[in-house]
């Protein structure tokens, strides 16, 4: 059975139990979106090549929580993504979506011009103009360009010697252009544990394109990336990712949503993909993680993003934090910060995204003494933008506790 049939065919397993509806963060805050059961398995039956009978589908943020919780294995979020791509192809894809879906292209333009680009990104009048012309909300979180890419740092970074073990690092676009520090800390933590870190050439995984319905382009990017990573996976190297959503794209989403189940490169890569915390915890379980942590005396709210939950691995970051003396971590029980990649940037969805995240922002504000921790970059930016509290990737806390700074 091809993947399309398999994803779409899963709608027959829906028993209308409403469990997904109780979890959907979007339908829980806005009547504009009638909920996953309705928009997914129910409405999909009425969608034909002539289009979708209902445009509310566009309000699905693609957070994937419905699929994670559906006990019958209905691929609700995946059905929605595919249907949205078709609907957008029929109704036209806004220029905005074509732009924000290309972080690596933005990075290539913005990086050399970082000071100027950042000046504009921080400028209220410019953001107002962008909102008026492109419908990207003026208050939505926008990362700043780092000016120097992680790739260029990695090329000059001397490999760890001697090293008996090696690992491949998939850094993703955001760490490359916006947060190279996160990637450098990941490298340092892995090296501290004796790994030589291989950073292959890599471009975007295509996830933002996929979320914005640009499937052909998304396929091109992810296949190319898989082709670049596959030789390592084939030789038995594990691949770690610090971007939890892009890691999920390589593990599963591209295969299912983009119907690339038959792509051998992707399957091989998927079989070797690890979220970095998943990987470090597996080291710990084998007694192979260094635990020479210094105390970190702070209280940190931790948010496991929806896409991290999609991995089906629990919350390994929490268990790693438990190894750090002095560190008090409060796990947020909120499933989504609202931004869901690029969803919360869009003017018409900004308010919904902020309302979805509101309970999380309250928890973060109440708990944090210094920083919040969260695995996903867009969610970190959203949390920081909404609360003013800096948000860090879990590896940053490990990095600090190892005394690597």
């Amino acid at each position, binding site marked *: 059975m091809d993947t399309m049939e398999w994803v779409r065919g899963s709608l027959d397993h829906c028993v209308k139990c*409403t469990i997904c*509806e109780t979890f959907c963060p979007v339908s*829980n805050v806005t009547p504009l979106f009638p909920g996953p059961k309705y928009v997914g398995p129910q409405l999909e039956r009425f969608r034909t090549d002539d289009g979708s009978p209902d445009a509310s589908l566009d309000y699905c943020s693609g957070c994937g929580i419905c699929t*994670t919780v559906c006990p*019958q294995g209905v691929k609700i979020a995946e059905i929605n993504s595919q249907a949205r791509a078709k609907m957008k192809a029929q109704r036209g894809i806004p220029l905005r979506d074509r732009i924000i879906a290309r972080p690596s292209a933005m990075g290539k333009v913005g990086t050399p011009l970082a000071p100027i680009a950042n000046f504009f990104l921080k400028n209220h009048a410019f953001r107002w103009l962008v909102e008026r012309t492109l419908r990207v909300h003026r208050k939505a979180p926008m990362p700043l360009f780092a000016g120097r890419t992680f790739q260029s740092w990695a090329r000059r970074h001397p490999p760890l010697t001697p090293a008996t073990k090696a690992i491949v690092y998939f850094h993703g676009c955001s760490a490359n252009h916006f947060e190279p520090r996160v990637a450098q800390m990941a490298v340092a933590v892995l090296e501290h544990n004796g790994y030589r870190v291989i950073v292959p050439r890599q471009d975007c995984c295509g996830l933002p394109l996929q979320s914005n319905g640009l499937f052909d382009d998304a396929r091109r990017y992810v296949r190319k990336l898989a082709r670049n990573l596959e030789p390592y996976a084939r030789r038995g190297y594990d691949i770690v990712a610090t971007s939890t959503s892009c890691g999920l794209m390589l*593990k599963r989403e591209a295969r299912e949503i983009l119907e690339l189940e038959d792509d051998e490169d992707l399957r091989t890569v998927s079989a070797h993909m690890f979220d970095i915390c998943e990987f470090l915890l*597996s080291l710990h379980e084998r007694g192979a993680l260094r635990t020479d942590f210094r105390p970190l005396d702070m209280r940190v709210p931790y948010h496991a993003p929806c896409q991290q939950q*999609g991995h*089906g*691995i629990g919350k390994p970051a929490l268990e790693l934090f438990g190894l750090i003396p002095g560190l008090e971590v409060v796990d947020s029980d909120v499933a989504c910060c609202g931004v869901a990649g690029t969803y919360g940037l869009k003017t018409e969805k900004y308010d919904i995204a902020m309302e979805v995240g509101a309970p999380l922002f309250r928890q973060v504000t109440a708990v944090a003494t210094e920083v919040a921790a969260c695995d996903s970059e867009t969610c970190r930016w959203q949390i920081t933008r909404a609360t003013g509290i800096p948000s860090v990737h879990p590896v940053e806390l490990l990095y600090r506790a190892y005394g690597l700074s």
Partner: protein
Amino acid sequence: MSADAVVVGAGLAGLTAGVRLAEAGLRTTLVGKGPGAMHLAPATIDVLGYAPDLVERPAAALPSFVAERPDHPYARLSADTVAASAEWLSAHMPPLAYVGTLEENYLLPTAVGVPKPSAFVPEAMAAGDLRSGSRFAFAGLRALKDFYPALLADNLSQAKLPTGVTVDARAVHLSDPGTEADVSPLGYARMFEDREFRSVVAAELLPRLEPGESVGFPSVLGLHEHRTTWLDLQDRLGRPVFEVPTLPPSVAGIRLFHALRDAFLAAGGRLLIGSTAAGAETKDGVVTHVVIQTAAARPTPIEARWFVLATGGFAEGAIFLDSYGEVHESVFGLAVSGVPAAGEPRFVPRYFDDQPMGRAGIAVDERLRPLDADGNVAFRNLFTAGAALGGAEPWRELSGNGLALASGFAVASAIVEWAS
């Protein structure tokens, strides 16, 4: 991954076992495809409601019930265990107090006005007890589909109660909350958490109530702040207020799910929701690993010393019928007992009739360990709890949650005892 104990299933049975194991200090991993029936079913702990006639006193009825049904899971669970499990639940979740005893069943109204027997019930449902007859007003929320207080009240007024008393019930419809769309039970639960909303509801309702009437609401009185919501409304109305279970989603059940999940996490349990247990590795009559499917295209084995199968019944895919008419257990490949012989009818037309396939499930020994086709313990360190157990007909007996809670409780006791 590794753990001391792995529980498969995030329903009442699995979570009960998981919480107790984690609290006993075992490193416990719980894997669930998704939440189980708790999100759908009323949160009442129904131990035994029909045998097949209405059961008024479950403790008194159980001995003869199991004597007539030696293969029933209650034959492996003493009445003390059942009572202890309910006590554990109630004492364990202070914000979710349960009331009741095994001595007698409450009779609470369902959403369609049928008196339903339950042994242990959420505190906020107890005032709906019909046994001594009374006067009830049922509040209707217009935007809540699938809850018709007029139908409820009408059926209840005609119901024959074992005590011989009659019930005086009527409906009071509240005005629209002003939203165009339907509001789900969860949506209303959030609205009721708002004081302002409650004061509007109370102001509209109060003048329309008659002296001596208790007020039944659909079970939407708050989610995270349920107790304060319920007590406040009771205060404002100056009379007993109670909840009536709704059709799915069940807010009362979600509260129970939250309470158990939070207790599990607080005890240090590792929760993997969204992962499917797809198989197991075994060696010399012992399970060594459960193999789960995560997002990555590789199987993930979890090594442990003890395993609990709490995957529910047919509805959750724990047990399935293939196209050759054979019945299988989906994780450990266990023998399924109680399957009608080839050629015998498997199903009868009416859903709630005595379904020949209805008792199919896992047969177990006294410690709730699955038996193989020859009646021997299949794996020494594997235990089974909940709707996966064979020999019961939960929906006809009204025993589903009672069995899930007591068996989840009992398997944890067996493992903790073994571990120490």
